[in-house]
């Protein structure tokens, strides 16, 4: 036993950076809803950015390790552990994580990473397909998981915090920057003139939004087209859906816009009844923002490298 799950929490899954190479076989990417938070958590414990972590939803688990491990929590703020810094958890010491104080999804990285059997090149859990992660499902009370081999700190657990986070500031009222989608011009104004509320029928496949119905000027049915995490599709009822990590690879609904990659962490942290608005930017601007974010992550990676053996 490397990691004992005493209490599983509300929806705790094993996720790495996702199953990116099998879209042609119809396999969703899965992986973390907030990939930046997962990458940072890994860096804080000396893992490679793509190591498998626990994605924690709204209520945290109670965990114990059989050996000493360094852990870090990023993303949503949870009761029970100071976020954005490494901690040492001794063998047999219980980690009891409570409810989310802000945001919706937290990432717990453990030095060495969660070492479940990869499926199609990834340890990410695909809940609907029932494969990947731990037995293809969310963790349950009393599960035991294997961990990988961890690196060590040069001198004790670092007394440091993440400084200058590349994560956008989470909030329960956010503005999401989007670029136009293939059918963006077919809709009457409406996406940018109101705020939307997140429906409780949202999950890892997508966030369902509620607002004044968006109206499409044409009624022509579409062939299925590829979709990506961040695609905003509009079914006939006019209530948009932001597709996320577990979304299908193809979708038949009109695509009004796509949330920029840099703002996807904001979407991941929204809860039911949170509100959001959209603003349009250009593709060039979206890619500039992405380059800036990656530059910041590179600086953090370089800065942390010296602290581990």
């Amino acid at each position, binding site marked *: 036993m490397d990691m004992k799950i005493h209490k599983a929490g509300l929806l705790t899954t094993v996720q790495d950076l996702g199953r*990116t*190479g*099998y*879209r*042609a*076989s*119809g*396999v*969703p990417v899965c992986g973390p809803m907030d990939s930046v938070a997962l990458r940072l958590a890994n860096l804080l414990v000396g893992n490679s950015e793509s190591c498998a972590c626990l994605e924690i939803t709204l209520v945290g688990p109670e965990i114990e390790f059989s050996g000493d491990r360094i852990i870090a929590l990023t993303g949503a703020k949870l009761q029970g552990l100071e976020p954005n810094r490494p901690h040492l958890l001794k063998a047999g010491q219980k980690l009891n994580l409570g409810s989310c104080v802000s945001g919706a999804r937290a990432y717990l990285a453990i030095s060495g990473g969660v070492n479940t059997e990869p*499926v*199609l090149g990834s340890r990410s859990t695909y809940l*609907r*397909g029932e*494969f990947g992660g731990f037995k293809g499902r969310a963790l349950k009370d009393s599960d035991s998981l294997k961990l990988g081999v961890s690196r060590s700190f040069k001198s004790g657990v670092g007394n440091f915090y993440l400084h200058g986070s590349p994560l956008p500031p989470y909030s329960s009222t956010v503005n999401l920057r989007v*670029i136009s989608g*293939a059918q963006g011009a077919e809709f009457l104004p409406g996406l940018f003139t109101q705020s939307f509320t997140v429906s409780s029928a949202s999950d890892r496949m997508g966030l369902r939004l509620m607002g004044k119905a968006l109206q499409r000027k044409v009624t022509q049915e579409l*062939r*299925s*087209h*590829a*979709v*990506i995490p*961040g*695609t905003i599709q509009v079914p006939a009822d006019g209530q948009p859906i932001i597709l996320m990590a577990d979304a*299908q*690879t*193809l979708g038949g609904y009109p695509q009004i816009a*796509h*949330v*920029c*990659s840099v703002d996807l962490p904001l979407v991941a942290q929204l809860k039911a009844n949170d509100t959001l608005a959209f603003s349009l930017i250009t*593709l*060039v601007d*979206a*890619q500039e923002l*992405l*380059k800036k974010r*990656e530059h910041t992550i590179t600086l953090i990676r370089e800065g942390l490298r010296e602290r581990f053996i």
Partner: protein
Amino acid sequence: MQVRLKSQAISFSALGDSALEISLGDASEAGVIERVHVLVEALKKENPRWINALLPAYGTVVIFYDAIKLPPSLGGEYEAACAWIKALAVSQGVLARRTPKLANKAKPIEIPVCYDSSLAPDLELVAAKVKLSVEAVIKLHSAVTYRVHAIGFAPGFPYLAGLNPKLKLPRLKTPREKVAAGSVGIGGDQTGIYPFATPGGWNIIGQTPVKLFDVKKEPPSLLSGGDEVIFKPITKEAFSQWI
């Protein structure tokens, strides 16, 4: 027979900031599927490090890419990436007047299907709706060589083109909460197979004992975009004894 000889158009559109869609026309037009697959093979062979994954679907190829890794020689811009792809397409004959030949054209894949009413909850209703006998529906459905236009909806689910127009039917008004794994259905002018027990809105007219998706195989999907498929009717006995 009139032979059209015009060079193929190609167009590009951004799918968010990390993917782009290349369109080579309507998949039902002659030669478009071949062109899609010649382009996919050429892209796989080039395999530039800024391309993360490819997804052929209908008359399109979607490229998932890493904007950060776009080489400076391309100017690092979306337009430059599109120009690079277009040059590759031209050099590989993807846009030539004559439909490019597929390098290794495989034989059609035979999928056994049991059309027994116990496995085909909508078969009798389908027959009534299209004003044919159940036998005639089975005969028409299994007489055609279909073409996989896309894999999607669920892992391994093939969208098959080539359905006899007499069998064209709208999807169910209310989708079923669960269809059995292996169910063969008709949705609009397409037919398809549900690899898993999932919710489904297509008219179910049979079931295959064959596994359409297996994570232990590479690729995990039995069928790929561009494959040809034929359905072979089998008895209930053969279905239950299938290994």
